[in-house]
C-alpha cells in the first residue's frame, strides 16, 4: 500500500506521464521480431502489484485517460483496459503475495495478454469488419515474449521510483533462520534486557 498525499500523487502522475511519453516516442518505434515492447501494461501491473488493487486500478485509469488524450484514441478505452490490469495485479498480491524471481515475468505475461485481449475485445465491440490474420497469433506471442523479457528491469525501475511512497519494502522477503546453532537470540542477550 502507499501513503496518499500530494507528493505521492505527483510521483505517480509523473510515472504515468513518463511511461506514455516513453512508450509512444521511444519504445514503440523499436521493431523487434515483427512486434515491439509495450511497457504501459507492465508499469500498470507493477504499480498494482506493489501498491495494491485500488491504487493499481486508479493508476491504470489515470494512465489510460492520459494515453487516450495524447494518442488521439477513443477516450475511455485504454482507461477501462488498464484499470482492469492494475486491479488484477493488485488483487494477486493481496490474495497470494507470490514471491520469487519469476513473479515479475509471470505478472508481465498476464498483464500483456490481458491488455491485448482487452483492446481486442473493445475494438470488436466498437466494430471491426476486416479480416483477422493468423499472423495475429505470432504478433501476440512476440509481444508477450518481449514484455516478459522487459518485465524484470521495468518492475525494478518502478519499484525504485515508488519506493519512497510505499508503506513496506516490496522486495522479496527472506525467511529469517531460527537460532538453532546454540547462539543466543539478540532478545536473550544480557545487554538486550538492559
Amino acid at each position: 500500500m502507499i501513503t496518499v498525499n500530494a507528493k505521492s500523487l505527483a510521483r505517480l502522475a509523473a510515472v504515468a506521464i513518463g511511461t506514455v511519453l516513453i512508450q509512444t516516442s521511444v519504445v514503440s518505434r523499436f521493431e523487434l521480431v515483427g512486434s515491439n515492447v509495450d511497457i504501459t501494461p507492465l508499469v500498470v501491473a507493477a504499480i498494482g502489484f506493489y501498491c495494491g488493487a485500488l491504487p493499481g486500478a486508479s493508476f491504470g485509469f489515470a494512465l489510460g485517460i492520459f494515453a487516450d488524450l495524447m494518442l488521439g484514441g477513443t477516450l475511455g478505452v485504454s482507461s477501462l483496459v488498464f484499470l482492469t490490469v492494475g486491479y488484477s495485479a493488485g488483487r494477486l498480491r493481496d490474495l497470494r503475495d507470490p514471491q520469487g524471481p519469476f513473479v515479475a515475468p509471470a505478472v508481465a505475461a498476464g498483464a500483456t495478454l490481458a491488455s491485448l485481449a482487452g483492446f481486442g475485445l473493445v475494438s470488436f465491440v466498437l466494430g471491426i469488419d476486416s479480416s483477422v490474420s493468423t499472423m495475429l497469433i505470432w504478433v501476440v506471442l512476440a509481444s508477450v515474449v518481449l514484455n516478459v523479457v522487459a518485465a524484470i528491469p521495468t518492475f525494478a525501475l518502478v519499484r525504485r521510483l515508488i519506493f519512497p511512497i510505499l508503506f513496506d519494502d516490496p522486495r522479496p522477503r527472506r525467511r529469517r533462520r531460527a537460532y538453532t546453532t546454540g547462539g543466543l537470540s539478540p532478545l536473550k542477550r544480557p545487554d538486550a534486557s538492559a
Partner: protein
Amino acid sequence: MYDKTVRRRRLVLAALVAASLLLLTAYFGESAGGGLHIVQRGVMAVVAPIQEGLSRATQPVRDTVGWVGDTVSATRDLKESRKTADSYRRDAIAGRSAVRENASLRQLLGLERTMARYQPVTARVIGDSPTLWYTFIQIDKGSSAGIKKDDPVMGTDGRTQATGLVGKVTEVTRNTAHVTLITDHSVRVSGKFDKTAIRGTLQGSVGDPSLLEMKFVDEPVRPGDTVVTRGTTSDSDNIESLFPPNLRIGNVARIDEPGTDSQVVWVRPFVNMKRVEFVQVLTRKIDGNRR
C-alpha cells in the same frame, strides 16, 4: 473493518469502470468539435514538443535496436539478410543515422518534385501506436503548416528507400497531426492495378501490418502486379475519393482462391510502416481527386 475496506474497494472500482464507460459513450456521441475532442487536441499539442525531442534524441539507439531486430528476423530469409547485412555494414561505417536520414530526405525531395502539384508538406514521425489493434503515427506538422483532416499521406521507408501511400490524417492540432495508416482496419482505399486498371478496395487485416487485403477484384491478376490509388471516378462530389489517383500502394504478394468469385488478393505495401521516419502530407486536392 474488513467489510468496510472491501465495500470501499468495490465502490471505487465500480466508479472507475462507470467513469470509463461514460467517457467512451460521451466521446462517441459528440462531434469532432465537442469538448472531449478539444481537450484531446489540447493535450496532443502540449506533449508534441516533448515527443519530438524524445524521438530525435533516441534516433541512434533506435537505429541500433532496429539493426538487432532486423538481424533476428532476417534468419527467416537468409538471402535477404545477406544483402541487408552488407548495407548495414556500409551504413555503420558511414554513420548509420545520418546516412539513413539523408536517404529519406533525398527520397522525399524526389517525391516532392513528382508530387509538387499536391502541395506536399514534409513532416517527421514523432510517435507510434503502442498496441497492435490501432496502427497510427504522429507527425510534427499540423494545421499551421496547412495540414487538414483526411489529407493523404505518402512516406518513405528509410532503409529500402521505397515510397508509397502510408495513410490519411485523422486528427490535427496546430503543430501535430495524427495519421492513421492504411494497414489500420478502419481505413479503406480504392485501388487499381497500374497496367490493367482492374479495380478493388484495399483494407488492413488485424494482426498483420505487412499485408493489405484487396477485395472485389473479379478478374485474374498476377503476383508482383503493382497497385495504385484509383482516385474519384464519379462526377458526383458526394462520393469523392480521399486519395488522388495513381499514388503507389504496393505489389501483389499472394492470391487466395485465384480465378474464383471469392478471389482475395493480398498486397504488400511498398513502405514498411514501422520504419517510416519522414512523410509527406498532400495538402491540395485537384479536381476532387479525379483522374
